[in-house]
């Protein structure tokens, strides 16, 4: 009885081929060969190769497919950023390096930890403190007060806080420490969401709310309370439509962006036109005009991808997120403890919800809220948070793998 672990080396080779061929193409874009772009492609490919092999070497049971999907999405982002803004692309490559280190660190922590115990209260205070800090001292960028500048370093506290939010949520639903603790936790969630709404960071507020409700349902199985929670969320959304002018504007633009084309609807319309211009197979890398779409390196990078790589490529990207989500769910289902299961489930839900909110906003399925596309959009805080969430998923996958191997060994089999 032998369980053969499937390597993802062949898939990684294709990813590296994608990265290098795209960089090779872009290096000739200005009419002559740009060695810098070619070197960038080689550097990114080497970094991914190194990270993948190190991960497979250090953590025997790491979920390689999840890691490879994460790297492919990152490489799509790197290519697009290289096409749009070289400076941002270099920064993103540095974030990739740092992100891999953080991923390794998170895997080690999750592998060792049982449920973080009382540290959860510290994480609760830290995440709330971060959101409060952004609300009080943050800078307003793109209408949301969610950036904090500390001299040379600037970051989005809500991105860091969301990782803590997931850990705290998994702890409270796994432990079920009585009514007092539940009320305390509910107050924490409510205050976090209120702070995000007050900071006009509606995308993050939606993300926190949605993740809370999904994890609540998974953790308690209480349909009625979940439906009531959804009702409260919907009532809150309707109330904010009437109370917060920013929300009203967003909804009105969503309903008919074309009449606001010259003003607030410009971004949505340009995004839709970019996607339409790309057609099924895109205009070709470097041949489109994604510069016309505002915030094309961050929130609207999906429109830029669809324009130059095509709608079919965009659909493949969405399907890759789907495979990533399914793998996350399988890891959560196989987890040996309730805490681990809810932790992975929460992390997977958060990443999937984040992808849905921004892709849905870009294609005008739902009102647009500013949020990054996981692994693809430019942005250090977002990328590091995503790698932390992947680290959580991988940490539990490693635990599951070690348990399965023990079980197979006891039955006289082996894992190769």
């Amino acid at each position: 009885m032998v369980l053969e672990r499937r390597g993802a080396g062949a898939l990684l080779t294709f990813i590296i081929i994608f990265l290098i061929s795209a960089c090779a193409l872009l290096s000739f874009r200005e009419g002559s060969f740009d060695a810098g772009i070619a070197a960038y492609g080689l550097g990114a490919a080497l970094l991914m190769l190194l990270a993948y092999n190190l991960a497979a070497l250090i953590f025997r049971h790491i979920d390689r497919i999840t890691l490879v999907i994460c790297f492919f999405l990152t490489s799509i982002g790197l290519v697009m950023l290289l096409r749009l803004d070289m400076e941002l692309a270099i920064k993103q490559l540095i974030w990739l390096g740092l992100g891999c280190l953080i991923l390794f660190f998170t895997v080690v922590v999750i592998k060792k930890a049982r449920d973080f115990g009382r540290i959860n209260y510290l994480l609760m205070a830290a995440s709330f403190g971060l959101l409060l800090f952004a609300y009080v001292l943050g800078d307003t960028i793109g209408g949301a007060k969610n950036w904090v500048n500390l001299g040379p370093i600037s970051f989005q506290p809500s991105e860091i806080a969301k990782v803590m939010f997931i850990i705290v949520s998994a702890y409270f639903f796994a432990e079920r420490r009585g009514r007092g603790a539940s009320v305390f936790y509910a107050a924490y969630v409510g205050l976090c969401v209120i702070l995000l709404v007050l900071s006009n960071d509606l995308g993050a507020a939606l993300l926190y709310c949605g993740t809370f409700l999904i994890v609540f349902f998974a953790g308690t199985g209480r349909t009625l309370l979940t439906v009531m929670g959804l009702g409260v969320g919907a009532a809150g959304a309707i109330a904010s439509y009437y109370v917060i002018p920013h929300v009203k504007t967003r909804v009105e633009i969503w309903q008919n962006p074309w009449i606001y084309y010259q003003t607030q609807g410009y971004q949505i319309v340009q995004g839709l036109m970019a996607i339409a211009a790309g057609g099924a197979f895109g205009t070709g890398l470097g041949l489109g005009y994604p510069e016309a779409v505002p915030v094309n390196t961050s929130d609207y990078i999906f429109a830029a991808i669809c324009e130059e790589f095509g709608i079919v490529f965009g659909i493949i990207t969405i399907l890759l997120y789907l495979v990533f989500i399914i793998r996350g769910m399988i890891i959560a289902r196989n987890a040996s403890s309730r805490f681990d299961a809810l932790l992975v489930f929460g992390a997977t839900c958060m990443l999937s919800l984040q992808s849905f909110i921004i892709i849905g906003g870009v294609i005008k399925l739902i009102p647009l809220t500013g949020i990054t596309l996981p692994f693809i959009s430019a942005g250090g805080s977002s990328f590091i948070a995503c790698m932390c969430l992947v680290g959580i998923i991988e940490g539990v996958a490693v635990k599951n793998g070690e348990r399965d191997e023990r079980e197979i060994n006891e039955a006289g089999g082996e894992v190769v």
Partner: protein
Amino acid sequence: MDGVFEAAALVMRFWFFAVAFVVLLGAAGISINEYREKRFVLGVAQSSIGYLHIISGPEDMMGENVQLMYENTVGRSRRVNIIFRDASVDKAHSQIYQGDDGRVYVNRLGRGDVSVNGTHVHDTMAVYNDDVICFGNVVTRLHVKEV
């Protein structure tokens, strides 16, 4: 040069699509196969009570682990669960099974010799982890799964 770049970019649209499609198919395909295989192997492992490690006997089986289910018949015939192709082993030589009390027992079915740690088994005998069980000239070590 611009024309060459434009032509290359147009052609490479399909290349990028193909690579992404292969990555998607590969990831989905590997995921499905891995899930099925893992489920099967873990299902078998979970229903196993342990294994026999072959210390000496048929050359092609030396060093192998033979998995034990709740009830196993050892012998030379094709009809048994655990086949030892050795002249000293009867067609249906012995049985190893888990009793209702959770303990593992070995018995003798044919005329061939069955011994546990050097003691001959005449009827049925309880066996424990690390016991050396001989079926004719085939020497095995029992590993019982911890519950």
